[in-house]
């Protein structure tokens, strides 16, 4: 095993045999790069939150948050996202144990919770649209749909990524590359849950109160 590792040419492409001992040292570049991507995404959401903070009180004689938001539905979708976070964590733990079936199973559960969250959000948006609370109605609703919609698009992208990862795991198993992809999507997924905390605190709860 060790002689093979020595003979292996050292290049950018990390091979299967070369990482058994020092897995984390090879991942450093990718994980740090992905983290910096998440931080730039965080800045996007920061500006959208600032937009909402500035425009969120301009109702233009239209409906206010207290008229529109149904907090029990928001609580439900919050828990959908929180459950999907913990099931992704279980998936990562199964991956650490080398259990492919468990990893796939928990990933599917994560995807279902993510889809449930998206379904609730689509329901909410279509309901708002039907009662005339469209983004065109007021500056408050424009900024609301932009902020929450951007988060929803991120979750959609995460779900598509999750399906792609399921296919990759199914075809190649728990290879080093797939483990790295698992950890990147893990960061992305937990990050989306983190942004949602800001959304439900700042937009929904504080919006209904003030």
């Amino acid at each position, binding site marked *: 095993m060790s002689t093979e590792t020595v003979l292996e040419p050292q290049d950018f492409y990390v091979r299967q045999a070369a990482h058994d001992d020092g897995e984390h040292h090879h991942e450093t570049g990718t994980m740090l790069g992905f983290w910096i991507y998440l931080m730039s995404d965080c800045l996007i959401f920061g500006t959208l939150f600032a937009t909402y*903070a500035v425009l969120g009180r301009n109702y233009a004689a239209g409906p206010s948050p207290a008229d529109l938001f149904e907090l029990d539905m928001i609580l439900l979708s919050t828990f959908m996202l929180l459950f999907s976070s913990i099931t992704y*964590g279980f998936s990562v733990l199964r991956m*650490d144990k080398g259990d492919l079936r468990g990893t796939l199973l928990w990933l599917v559960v994560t995807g279902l919770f993510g889809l449930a969250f998206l379904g609730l959000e689509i329901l909410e948006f279509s309901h708002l649209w039907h009662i005339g609370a469209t983004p065109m109605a007021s500056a408050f609703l424009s900024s609301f749909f932009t902020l929450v919609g951007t988060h929803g698009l991120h979750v959609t992208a995460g779900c598509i990524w999750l399906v792609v990862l399921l296919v990759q795991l199914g075809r190649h198993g728990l290879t080093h590359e797939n483990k790295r992809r698992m950890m990147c999507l893990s960061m992305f997924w937990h990050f989306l849950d983190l942004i949602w905390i800001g959304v439900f605190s700042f937009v929904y709860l504080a919006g209904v109160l003030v």
Partner: protein
Amino acid sequence: MSASSNTSLEHGEGHGEGGHGSFRTYMIGFGLSVVLTIIPFWLVMNDVLDDRLLTVAIVFILGAGQMIVHIYFFLHMNSRAEEGWLAMSLSFTVLLVVIVLSGSIWVMFHLDENMMPSHDQIERVKALP
């Protein structure tokens, strides 16, 4: 199950700190998140406190607390991960977000104040010679 968890425990320790976490840390993070989610929703949905500003402050503080819980228990971030670069980039991002948020709110609040003439301001202008 128990046999495999034994081997994985050793494996997990070998991974070193700041790795993928363990069942325990995930469950602690999940429990804290549930509590920190339910309290603000309970406060707002049942109108527990009379003081609305106080409620908003509590909601924000608990939200920030839950974000820290997520960063530590789910994203496995700590001051040593990736030789401190994660913490460095995170604190820089937080600084920028705070500047953007507080700056926008501050500037636009003053703009609104000065653009919307109040009644006595209008009267004062009318009374000018």
